[in-house]
Every structure is written in structure tokens, then in C-alpha cells.
């Protein structure tokens, strides 16, 4: 078994409206950041998990994203996996 750290990024799909991103973008521009073009607001998760192989870890994280972390109807996700420690 090894320990893995997965970094998961969830973002609203391109075609989907992102009121939070627009409001934040608007606020930043009002603060004087005129060079800002666009903001998309999403979610970020760090998951620590155990798995036998990195393939297994990958599969588990993919399923967690599909089942819970992202809403596939309106959100995209991607993740990165990193080995933290191997126990033997």
C-alpha cells in the first residue's frame, strides 16, 4: 500500500454561466485590476488516500470525482496524483 495525494480541480463547464466568477471579476476590476479579462470560479480538493498501485489510486479518484466531487452536468474536473509515501 502507498499513500497518495490527489489534487482535484473542479471548474464550471465553458458553456455554463459562472455568476460567482463574474462577480469576483467585477469586484477585482473595481479594485483597479483593469487588466483582468475573465475569472472562472471553481473548487479545489486535496485528497489523501491509500492504494496498492497508482493505477488503483487513479481509478478511485476518477470515480470520486464523477460520483460526488464534480457535477458532470455543469462541471468539468481534472486531477493530479502524487505518491506521498510507500509502506514497503
Amino acid at each position, binding site marked *: 500500500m502507498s499513500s497518495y495525494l490527489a489534487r482535484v480541480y473542479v471548474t464550471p463547464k465553458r*458553456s455554463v454561466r*459562472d455568476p460567482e466568477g463574474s462577480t469576483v471579476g467585477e469586484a477585482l476590476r473595481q479594485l483597479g485590476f483593469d487588466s483582468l479579462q475573465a475569472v472562472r470560479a471553481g473548487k479545489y480538493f486535496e485528497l489523501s488516500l491509500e492504494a496498492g498501485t497508482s493505477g488503483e489510486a487513479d481509478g478511485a479518484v476518477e470515480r470520486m470525482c464523477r460520483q460526488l466531487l464534480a457535477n458532470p*452536468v455543469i462541471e468539468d474536473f481534472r486531477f493530479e496524483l502524487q505518491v506521498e509515501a510507500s509502506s514497503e
Partner: protein
Amino acid sequence: MTAVNAPAPPGPLTSMEEAQVRELLGREPNALELALFGAMWSEHCCYKSSRHLLSRLPKEAPQVLVPAGEENAGVVDVGDGLAVAMKIESHNHPSAVEPYQGAATGVGGIVRDIFTMGARPIALLNSLRFGFPNARRNRYLLSRVVAGIGDYGNCLGIPTIGGELFFDGTYDGNPLVNAMCVGLLRHDQLVRAAASGEGNLLLLLGNATGRDGLNGATFASVSLGEQSLAQRPAVQVGSPFLEKLLIEACLELLAGSLLVGLQDLGAAGLTGSGVEAAHRAHSGVEIDVAAVSRSEEGLTPLEVMLSESQERMLAVVRPGDVAAVRQVLDHWGLRSDVIGRVIARPLLRVLEGRSLCAEVPIDALTEQAPSYVWPEAAPREMRATASLPAEPLELLAHPNVCSRAWVARQYDQTVQAATVATDGADAALVRLPGSRRALALCTDGNFGSSDPYLAGALAVAEATRNVSCTGATPWALTNCLNLGSPEQPAGAWELARTVDGIADAARALNVPVISGNVSLYNEAAAAGPDATGDGGFPGMTRIRPTPVIGMLGLLDDVGQACTIGFKRAGDVIVLLGPLGGPLDLAAEVAVQRACRDAIAQGWLHSAHDCAEGGLLVALAECCLRGGLGARICIETPALDVLAESPSRIVVSLAEEDLPRLSGTPVLRLGTVAGDRLDISTASAPVCSLGLEDMRHAWEGGLERWLTESSAPA
């Protein structure tokens, strides 16, 4: 006219309808024109399968200021120069696809219908139906729908004060989400959504236009199984923050008499709203799609005209007022585009810059829309709801019986500081400003009947009874007809029977129908015990006919409002109304009147109608709300404590006032006493339930269903 030769997209029009379009235009329509017809002639926009039936509803009464079918919402006088605008609307299909946004945007849409009338929204209610919560998908749908409704209304600062929730297998795959909004206005604030005055300008306010919700009107008008996921419209995402700004800005513009007319953008987007507003004024509109701000690039005129991007309003403004209007909008940080003007000829003209993209008579899109009377046939068998458990504590914990506090605590119920505090009442009470008068509000559907006629009639009976149990007089109702496809004989039969049931009951109870909404094609591809073999689409489960009634009652003195809970040990407990039997509208009228009269005279201590779970559950709720037990002895064998028969109200009062009850059957049941609910018949005990055990079963019921993955079926 630009010739558009590309073949029309596979539209929602039938070939017969396309031929009708050709005939009305006297020429070949282009793709955009065909799409305009497709949207405006959808069931969602033109009620082609239900229009002929809606005329059966009683719409007239002295208090009605704006009757059903004329404007975005119905309006009734409520005295003191005040009026109430109200309407209920479904957002079933969007909520099936994305429950949070579907429900949220459902609230957004109905709120726009209300402030379009010049009313300030003061209350929200809802009516929800899901498959049983033992399925994870249904739990997910429920929790996301509730969060979506709550987040939207909470952010707007409109209290969500009532609603109902019911589970049934026929809603698997096709949940129902109906949202109701109530607004308050002075008579002189009433506005019409009419595009009148040639040369007046059309201002589009609020959100930019994108592809979201494209074809939503069509989507709502077909069964969920019929469209592939790819064909479904992009999910609409709501912004309650933007809607809040729109409410404030529009009410300010109306107060300053800066608008000639105001119309929300709902089904069929700019097309629906431009056409409706023109139709009401017998005028025409010219819209330049190039002037419409976009949230994404590359939108075609068709997409601009049919986008259902949320939080947009169409304002009709005199040219000289544009600057003043813009000043108000700037204050609220709202964008606006002058996108067109009112024209005298009754046409919808769509331009893109200088080039004409479509030109269609308004009448052709509205009055001349087809109207169908589908062949009706009763289904082979009618579907009863799943039966309730007979064991009392199991019954109290059943998902269709237990407390809805888990839902309600996610809704801000006290914002606007007008929600009257009660220990639980059959209808929510909202105080009118500057007086002791109050509105009583509730939503109700049918819980007991498998016959659609009875479903309609019982929904009206229950809703009026709920209002009467607070002491309020039923004053007006709105309705949402949730049914399956009318293109199937069984569906058509159910639709017609449902309308008849509502119509007869509303007449008997003397309540005008002031607004409503029709949601057909509620069926989903789901195999299971309910899959229809009864004349529905093969392999599709048609929902059970679900008429939902939104009821308004008027209460003269909020200090006299009657609530559910038992108040005083030693009071006698009485059942008002018939012991059992089918719905009898005369008996219903009588029991409600008896209850209201007693409340008005001030000697009734509690009142609660019998609904799901019959007398047993009603008594348990009176005990729980009041924190007092009851000793009940049922001497007549004709009374079954579990039967869900209509027209019955449990009341409590002082012994000496008992003779004053009249005008309806009166049966003495027992007394308020102790901390247990003891029920026995002349021959044997039925149950003896401790308050705390009942509370545990009833109060925690829903949460257990939602959090325990092993919740019973």
C-alpha cells in the same frame, strides 16, 4: 428578407403544423421563423392541449382584478387598497437534469412573473414530488432541490413560508418541482405587460444572453425519455443576486412611472416575451438581435431569440425616458440594451443590424396557434399510492407523514419581518402592513386518490380546508397541472378529469382560479412496477396526475389565528365533518364554515385537518405541536383512525363551548390530557404512544431517511 435555405433543424412542429405555418404566412417560412413557431406553438407556451380545458375553470369573482390567462400572474383585491399577485409554476424537467439549478431557476422565474405585475414579492411556497428516498438518486434530487430553492429565495430576501413534499414511485425519473410566489401591491401600482405606443423602445435588462436554456420551452413539452442528453438545453444557471437587483430596479422604475410596460423573459426567451407583450397591446415589435449583449460569441439570431438565459426583463420605455431609466439602472449596476421598438403593425420583425431575418404576424404566433382536443380514454387501471404502515410509530416516521422541519430549516422564513409565528398551523400566515389582517397561504396536492377528478377536487378541498383551519376565508387559488403526455388517450383523459375536479371544487367552495401553469409530458423511461401498460408511451412511466393548488386566504385579525397544537389539558377534542366516505363538496363547505365561524368567535383552541395518515396522524400532530397528550375513545365503529377520508377537522375547545359547534357533524373524541396519546375503541385499546416516542419518530423521520443509507423501503 434574407433567404435562409438551410433545412430547418428537426423542430418540434409536426408536419401538419408546418403546413399550417405555411398557410398562415402564405409562403415558405425560413429556419428562424419555423423555430419561432416551434417555440411559441409548444405546449409550454401556447397550452395547445389544455387551452380548451382551462376555460372550464371558474375565473370570475368580485375580488379578481386580473383574471387567469391575461397577464403573468393573477391579481386579487385584498382590501385597504391592497392587492395580491400570485402564481405557481413548474420546473420539473430542468430539475430532473440538474436539481439545484433547475429548482433555483424555477424560483427565479416565478418571482419575475410577480414583480412584472408591479408587486413586491412577499412570500414563496413550493410543492415537491420525488420517488421514494430509499433510492440514492431520489435523496440526491431532494437535497439538491431543497438547497436550490432555499439558496435562491434566501438570497432574494423573500421568505419561503410553506410547501409540501410527497414521495411516490411514479416520480422516479421525473420529479416535480412547483414554485409559487405571492406579491403585494397597491391597486394603483398594477402594471400590464403590454408593448404599447408605436415608437416606444424595448429595453432588455439584466443578464447577458447566451446559449443556456436554449429550446427550454420545447424541452418542457416532450417526455424526458424522448430526448437524448445531447439534445437537452444547456443547463440554466441562476443568479439570485442579479435577480434581487432587477426586483429593486424594476420596482423603482415603476414607482417613478418610467415604464410603459414590463415583461419578464421566461419560456421561449425574447421571442415569448416580445410576442406576448405585443399581443396584449395589439401592436407589433421589431427586435434587432445585434443589439443584444451576449455572454458568448457566435450566437445566431435564432439562438438570441430563443435563449432562456435567466434574470432578464423586457421594459417598454418612452424614448424621452431612456436617460432617466438608465440612471436608475446604473445605480443598481444593471446593464441594459435598447434592442428594438414597438411598431403599429402587429408583427414580430427580427432584424440583425439592417437585415431582416424574420417577419411573422403576432396573431399567427399566439391566437392562431393550434389547439388540440386529444382523444380520451380511461386507463385500464388507476394507480393508488403506496399504502402507509399501520404501526403508529412507523406511520409517524414514514417519509410521507413525518415532519418536514429538515426542509423548512433550510428556508429563511422570517425575512421581511411579517411571518406570523405559530406553533404550527395548517397554512402560513403573513401579516399585511399596517394592520392586524393577514394572508393565509398554503400549497396542496392530492395524497389519497387515484382518480384524477378526485385528485383535482381533493386538492382544492384540502387547500381551502387548510386555510380555513387558521380562521382565514379562502379567497383565490392558483394551480399547477402536472400530468403525463396528453397525446396518449389515458393522459388526455387524466388531464380533462383533473381540470373538471378542480373546477367543480373551486365553484363549490367559491374560490376563483386566478392563475396557473400546465406541465404535461411528465413521464420518464423507467422500468418498474409502475411502467405503463395502460395506454401511455410504452416503457414510459407516466406520473400520477398531480394537480397542485396554491391557496390564498384572508384573515381579519391575526391575533385570532388558530393553530394546530392542543392548548389546555381538560379541553375536549372533537372531530368535525363526516366520519368517512367519498368527497362530498357540500359537506366540505359546511365543515370549513363551521370551523371558521368558531375561530372568529374566539372559542376554538386548536384546529387541524386530517390528511395523510388520517385521524391518527392528525391527533399525533396536535399532541406534538401542543406538547400535550390526549385520551381518545372512539365509540363508533364507522370511524377508522387510519382512513384518509376528506372534509374532517380535529378541534379542541372548552367543554362548555361544545354545544356551540354546529352546521356540520360533530363527534366527541376525548380530552386533552397527560403526556401520551391513548386511543381506544369501545372494545379494545388501539394504541398508547408517549409524546417523546412520537416526537422521535416524527421529527427525526426525514433526516433518518436521508442520512441512513439503510433507510427502509
